[in-house]
């Protein structure tokens, strides 16, 4: 943060003042806290999911696309079945989103396992496909005929994710995100299946020697991360916007990568790093409004935070003593 302040000074702003605005402003009132929590939902979900993929040495850069795939699937389900009760409809929408994301991730997984195609390349390409496909859907086949703007029809009321607190946009997704991050922690570190995922990630030769199916574990890992991203997309649709738009995500899928790295690829810590990134995101919006600091500079400060934490983490790892 100190470095961030210096950077602001150099650019002619009142360094510490701006940082203070950011820190105090963010936690100003109850409303802004619920907004931060709302932003942390997709970050926690995506970050925790990516921890699993990264532990398996699957460099899934495609959470953004998987989020969109999930959002599309959730929307399709959410507009199509009138008459269902919320108890059934909401889970159905969420599951559809998760499956959509898992499928999108699974394509890259299949290409990797079957043809050794680099998942870094394929997931990036799948991002573009998902974004373009979404634009096409909301301007074409899924467009709300009554609306002037490209957007889908509104989700049926029964498909909306219930609010956590009435009056705020925050919905129960925050509880589910935290719970799922904990579940993934148990999966990765306390279950046999997670053990295999980690072994495959560290040393595929040892994994084969131990009788593990490396390809299957890689598929599982990327589908889990895709599923979490898809679920994040479903929550954005069914919990916040209630419609599919072209730009439902301001880059949560990419920020999720930083969330996972900051968490040291441990899904439990993704809860905190996801929260931190939500704070930074809200703070950056505030900084722009209150002091006209350009967005680029805010991003640089974010980058510094990530770099310092990740570097310290790496140093700890290479000093090779257990913590």
């Amino acid at each position, binding site marked *: 943060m100190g470095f961030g302040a210096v950077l602001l000074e150099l650019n002619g702003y009142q360094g510490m003042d701006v940082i203070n605005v950011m820190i105090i402003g963010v936690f100003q009132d109850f409303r802004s806290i619920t907004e931060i929590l709302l932003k942390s939902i997709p970050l926690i979900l995506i970050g925790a999911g990516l921890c699993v993929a990264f532990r398996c040495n699957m460099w899934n850069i495609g959470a953004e696309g998987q989020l969109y795939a999930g959002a599309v699937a959730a929307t399709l389900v959410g507009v199509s079945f009138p008459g269902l009760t919320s108890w059934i409809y909401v889970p159905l929408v969420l599951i559809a989103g998760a499956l959509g994301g898992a499928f999108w991730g699974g394509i890259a997984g299949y290409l990797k396992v079957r043809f050794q195609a680099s998942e870094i390349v394929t997931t990036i390409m799948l991002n573009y496909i998902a974004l373009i496909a979404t634009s096409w859907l909301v301007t074409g086949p899924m467009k709300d005929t009554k609306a002037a703007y490209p957007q889908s029809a509104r989700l049926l009321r029964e498909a909306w994710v219930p609010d956590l607190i009435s009056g705020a946009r925050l919905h129960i997704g925050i509880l589910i995100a935290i719970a799922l991050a904990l579940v993934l922690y148990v999966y990765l570190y306390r279950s046999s299946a997670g053990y295999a995922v980690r*072994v495959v990630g*560290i040393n595929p030769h*040892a994994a084969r020697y*131990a009788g593990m199916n490396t390809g299957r574990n890689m598929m599982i890992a990327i589908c889990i991360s895709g599923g979490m991203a898809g679920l994040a997309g479903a929550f954005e649709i069914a919990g916040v916007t209630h419609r599919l738009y072209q730009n439902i995500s301001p880059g949560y899928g990419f920020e999720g990568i930083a969330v996972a790295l900051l968490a040291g690829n441990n899904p439990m810590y993704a809860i905190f790093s996801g929260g931190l990134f939500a704070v930074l995101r809200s703070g950056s919006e505030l900084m722009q409004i209150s002091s006209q600091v350009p967005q680029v500079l805010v991003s640089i400060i974010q980058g510094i935070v990530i770099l310092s934490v990740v570097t310290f983490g790496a140093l700890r790892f290479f000093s090779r*003593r257990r913590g």
Partner: protein
Amino acid sequence: MTDDKPMNSPYLLQMKEIYKSFGPVTVSAGVTLEVKPGEIHALLGENGAGKSVLMSILCGILKPDSGSIHYKGAPLNIGSPREAIRHGIGMVHQHFMLVPNLTVAENYVLGQGTPLRLINDMKAVHQRITALSDRYGLDVRPDAVIEDLSVGEQQRVEILKVLFHGTDLLILDEPTAVLTPQETDRLLDLMRDLVADGKTVIFISHKLDEVMRVSDQISVMRDFKVVHTTAVTDTNPRELARLMVGRDVLMELPRGSANPGQVVLSVDGLSCRNDLGLPALKGVSFSVKAGEIVGIAGVSGNGQTELSLAISGLLPIDAGKVSLEGKDITGLSPAEINQLSFAHVPEDRHKMGVLLPFTLAENAILHRYNQSPFAKKGLLQRGVTASFARDLIKRFRVKTPDEEEFLANLSGGNQQKLVVARELARDPNFILVSQLTRGIDIGAIEFILQEMLKQRDAGRAILLISTELEELFTVCDRILVMFHGEILGEVPADRSRLEEVGLMMAGQRSAPAAAMEPALT
């Protein structure tokens, strides 16, 4: 020995009162080591005595907590391996430090100069490698890709790498652990050539006969200190062993004759190809009975690796048949074979035997991570795993603070002990072992070989693949010799047949006694 350096101290290197600890774990406790120029100085000590740590300090990988290092008469303060190389200190590590998907030449120039210059110089680099390789008879091709090379070949690449960078003080950390007797002879000759060229060598080995043959001075480490330094002429293997281990070590194990029962493993006309698609096994047939130890001797790279992989389901089989206890296991997956009464100590522990970032406890359940009692309802049972790991550690005297230590922090020999302990704990009827004693100290070799004999006497069938004739003749009942993917012949494990085995390893079917040392320079 001529002393042409302008200095008052007779030593090239003096390490004094070196202390080093990792948190609460002490790994150097006041080590003093003095090496004269132009000598071959052997460093001995049990697994985990602190030899590799001391050498890592010398070549700038680790920083000592206190102590001083004098080199060429001046205090030496190096912060990185690269600086060490600049001072002419080069080390061949116990565990290879090569980038697997690059060629030999690319590995050598890694981190040297700018890419553009390198492209122009690459031809010169290749020439230099070929020249050095020819000169010392190392058989290293500059354009070979590391991951295609056998363990023994990679070792030679490592040695040549240090020579390539031009060093005055060469540190060899267990270089002979993976070499055959012939290769070892060659290496020892090479060490003498280097000394004749004015270089100095520090040589770590667990093999006392080599140490006696090649070194001028010997230092013995015990409990993180040098406890004794002597000229080779003033000592003998028995004394060295006692200094290292603290008790007398049996050089020859007492054993009864084998009592072979039914055939457990039978291999019939087995053929397969290696990673490059070249034929590696050409119709190999043999069998191993319950209660016997069958050895496979051979220079590394003659199909032994592929044989062990094919038997354990890790390499596709082109032709032939493998059966275990009467069941055809040809083409079964590793997972299916793991379900059988089968254990496998792989030749290269780092490549497949262990997970370095995992704890000992996690490593202990590598094959049984999803089996009761280590897993219940899909969840790992950490208590059971921990006590199982503690048991292995105790029984095989693995030197470690506790079972939650990361495997990467163990000394090489102790990592190997854990692998052997884990595999024997699977209580298998058939045991496939490759390079069993690679990097293990003599006290532990005695213990592990005795353990193998116990397994034999309990009616287990054991296939022992080794480049180490000493080990084969100590425990095997019969020895098969592999050459170019074929079994050249079978010899009873009687020490009088040692020479015959050596000749067969060089490709000769029968033995005209005069033709030893075929074309080795």
